[in-house]
């Protein structure tokens, strides 16, 4: 009855075309990028303006339905999954770049703009949008803000929250407010900092003013090849300790290298135990100096060979290996589970060893393909779900690896978020009081408790009763990479 009322009212506000409610329509919105959880929303709306978002939100709140914002749905923590039913708001139609100001190096965009589309449009002015999650060809700027996404180049340039200046936010009662400002240091609490990364629990972003970054004068890319994973991990620390902040410092280890090589032909030696993809950018004299230092540090750390991409084509080829990693590893085993944790950089060798031990203990394969320079690991557990008990082993191994991250002074998510997947782990890092302060903040924005309820914070009902019946692996599209 109320669902019917919801649908009728939404159709009145948005037109029936943009209110999806048939089973076959809703099925497309059951998953996120991980496919670990699955649930069907009551309705999906695809609004075409802030006013329509506001009307839809006010309606759902009034009728007591959960509201879940959705960009491209590539999130990996289940935060766009409608586990309690409710209304999914797809921001797909709000996909316009409204303005690029080359002078101020800012852009005004709608949330549904795809990440790479913004950088492509900004390229004409020698600018780009720095956050570059590996899903950047499909994920949206709104989703990046919702999850505070990172990416390879966030090592030097910072994550999404460092690049969002202001947003238009629809609150749970349908009120529309501007949060933040393109003007520096405006008085008032920095509410924007709380909203970025809030996984749709504080409001729906319908417009963003973001900072663009000037393209560097010079770029240099290296591939450092290692016979030992821990030596490679120590080399990462040594580079940072030498005072170099590369633009990107990525690592691939283990069986992944051979798999990638046979898939992408990036020139990675299949017998290597680990490779580092190192990119530096900046002014040409600085780059020449850093290139020398990187060569010195890599050699001193025991790197077998250091290759330098001498032109754009070679650089692309090296990156193609990194970018094809996920698709390539999918050939090792039919199913996977991507983990995301962060450790202090100096603890990388240790955590890599630990994750290998844990995976072995649970009889799973693990490949690490990750943002090493940030200490942000992504152990990729590989398995075959047709073998009974595999899901449970994968979940247990994942939890144990994240627990190890915490034990060495790290945290349970570097960039993918908490969502459903990790909310039960929050007490590992936050006390009851810490969590109560988070809950206060959430109540301030959403007193009705309708914005993506149950996500991000643990709650008595939160221990996931959901079990995906579909295989873990979902097609993430050609060229998808973690």
């Amino acid at each position, binding site marked *: 009855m109320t669902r019917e009322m919801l649908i009728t009212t939404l159709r009145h506000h948005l037109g029936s075309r943009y209110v999806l409610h048939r089973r076959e329509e809703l099925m497309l919105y059951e998953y996120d990028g991980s496919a670990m959880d699955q649930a069907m929303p009551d309705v999906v709306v695809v609004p075409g303006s802030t006013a329509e978002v506001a009307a839809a939100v006010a309606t759902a709140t009034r009728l007591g339905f959960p509201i879940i914002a959705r960009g491209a749905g590539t999130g990996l923590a289940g935060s766009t999954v409608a586990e309690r039913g409710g209304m999914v708001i797809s921001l797909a139609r709000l996909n316009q770049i409204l303005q690029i*100001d080359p*002078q*101020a190096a800012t852009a005004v965009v709608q949330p549904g703009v795809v990440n790479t589309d913004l950088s492509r449009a900004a390229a004409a002015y020698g600018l780009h949008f720095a956050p570059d999650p590996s899903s950047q060809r499909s994920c949206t700027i709104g989703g990046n803000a919702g*999850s*505070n996404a990172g990416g390879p180049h966030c090592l030097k340039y910072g994550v999404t929250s*460092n690049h969002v200046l202001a947003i238009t936010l629809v609150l749970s009662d349908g009120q529309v*407010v*501007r949060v933040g400002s*393109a*003007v*520096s*240091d*405006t*008085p*008032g*609490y*920095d*509410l924007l*900092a*709380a909203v970025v*990364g809030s996984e749709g629990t504080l409001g729906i972003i319908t417009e963003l003013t973001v900072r663009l970054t000037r393209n560097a*004068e010079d770029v240099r890319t290296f591939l450092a090849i290692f016979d030992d994973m821990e030596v490679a991990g120590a080399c990462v*620390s040594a580079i*940072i*300790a030498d*005072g170099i*902040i590369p633009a990107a410092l990525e690592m691939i280890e283990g069986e992944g290298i051979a798999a990638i090589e046979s898939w992408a032909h990036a020139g990675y030696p299949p017998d290597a135990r680990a490779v580092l993809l190192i990119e530096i950018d*900046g*002014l040409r*004299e*600085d780059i*020449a*100096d850093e290139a020398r230092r990187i060569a010195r540090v890599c050699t001193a750390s025991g790197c077998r060979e250091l290759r330098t991409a001498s032109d754009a084509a070679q650089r692309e080829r090296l990156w193609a290996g990194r970018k094809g990693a996920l698709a390539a590893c999918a050939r090792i085993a039919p199913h996977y589970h991507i983990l995301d944790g*962060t*450790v*202090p*950089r*100096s603890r990388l060798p240790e955590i890599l060893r630990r994750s290998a031990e844990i995976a072995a203990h649970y009889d799973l394969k693990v490949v690490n393909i990750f*943002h090493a320079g*940030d200490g*942000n690991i992504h152990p990729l557990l590989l398995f075959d779900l047709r073998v009974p008990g595999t899901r449970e082993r994968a979940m247990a191994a994942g939890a144990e690896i994240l627990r190890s991250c915490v034990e060495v*002074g*790290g945290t349970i*998510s*570097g960039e*993918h978020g*908490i969502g459903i997947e*990790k909310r039960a782990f929050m007490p590992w*890092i*936050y*006390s009851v*009081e*810490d969590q*109560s*302060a*988070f809950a*206060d*903040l959430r*109540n*301030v924005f959403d007193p009705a408790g309708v914005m993506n309820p149950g996500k991000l914070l643990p709650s008595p009902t939160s221990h996931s009763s959901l079990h995906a019946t579909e295989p873990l692996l979902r097609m993430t599209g050609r060229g998808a990479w973690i």
Partner: protein
Amino acid sequence: MTPFLLYNQQPTQIVAPTSAEAVADVLRDASAQGLAVIPWGGGTRQGMGGPPLRYDLALDMRGLAAVLAYTPDDLVLRVGAGATLGHIQDLLAAHNQWLPWNPPLPDQATIGGLLASGATGSLRMGYGTPRDWTLAMQVALGDGRLVKSGAPVVKNVAGYDTHKLHIGALGTLGVITEVTFKVAPRPAHCQTLLAAFSSPLTILEAMQQIGQPPFQPISLVLLNHSASKANPILHSFLDDTSPHLIMAVRFAGTAGAVGRQIRTAVAVCVEQGAHTIELSETDDGSIWHAIADDLRPTDQLLIRVGAPLSHVREMLRLVESIPYQRGWPTDRYLIAGAGLAYLRWPVVALPDLLQALTELRAGLAGIGGYAVVEDLPVALANTDSPLDLWGPPPETLALMRSLRKVWDPAEILNPGRYLV
């Protein structure tokens, strides 16, 4: 001078805890008893926010000054909020690292006080603001809950970034007890160019060019003649005493990259008719300390003005014309790249100041800018018609108020000093 005297008001109690738990206990008790608390660091920025509505307890935070963790190889530092920034910088310098943050009076000012008051400096052009460098915080909320957010690693999305809410909140949500920063390697070389221009048009043109590639300045500030004269170190480099507008621009990196930028910047400035002085590397540190300290409290009124980068010229026109029409001498500073200007107005009759501030705000409103009082001298406080220190509130004021209500329910923290 009486310690913890604030606009001639004295606290009835002074508490100097040495642990975060003790800070939380103080706040819990104060909340229960309704005692107004003024947190104190080095006191360098107590002129922000003006006189409190009530003042019972001075909370001296300097006892929480320990360095709790520092792993140079990880570029991460965890420190008590009562440590001075200068102390931290000395520690980091021993490992050839720094926190690229240069607010005024670093040897007196504490980390907690600087963050709470939203202090920044000229380095924000190259390195962003402390918001970008703060990884985690522990805070005693007004009601006595001791909470943390963030993590001691450079990348973390677990939980809300509530620590950033305390930056610039003037301690009205909680008292910062501990901060974890990401720190940076110190650049191999830093060098500064001074350039004296005779017209606002030419200096703005040069600023515009030097703000674009291939230049990557880490700091660029403009000072009017009066401001440059007020800075003895800066002034000592300027041989010509005729009225000029001064640009100070600083580059960092390898000698090659710095040298090329200095040479190219000289060419740009000369092209605009400027007289340039290349400082030696040894003078680089002292000149920027002196420029940062220019914005310390004095007995004059210090105003901070912000505007969109696309409207900096209009902003400068406004901040110049309003005091000029009144015949007031003013020191003016522009922090390029941030669209921020700092103005020092003399202490004149209050109605005149009120009127000038209203006019400034009206002009700024037209270009999307704002003005706040960064430092209110005692002579202008405690009057019946006080200056509006913060200007019109943001449209999210209601949200801010509800947040304050849950974290500082008894409204004991810096009452009456913030816009929320």
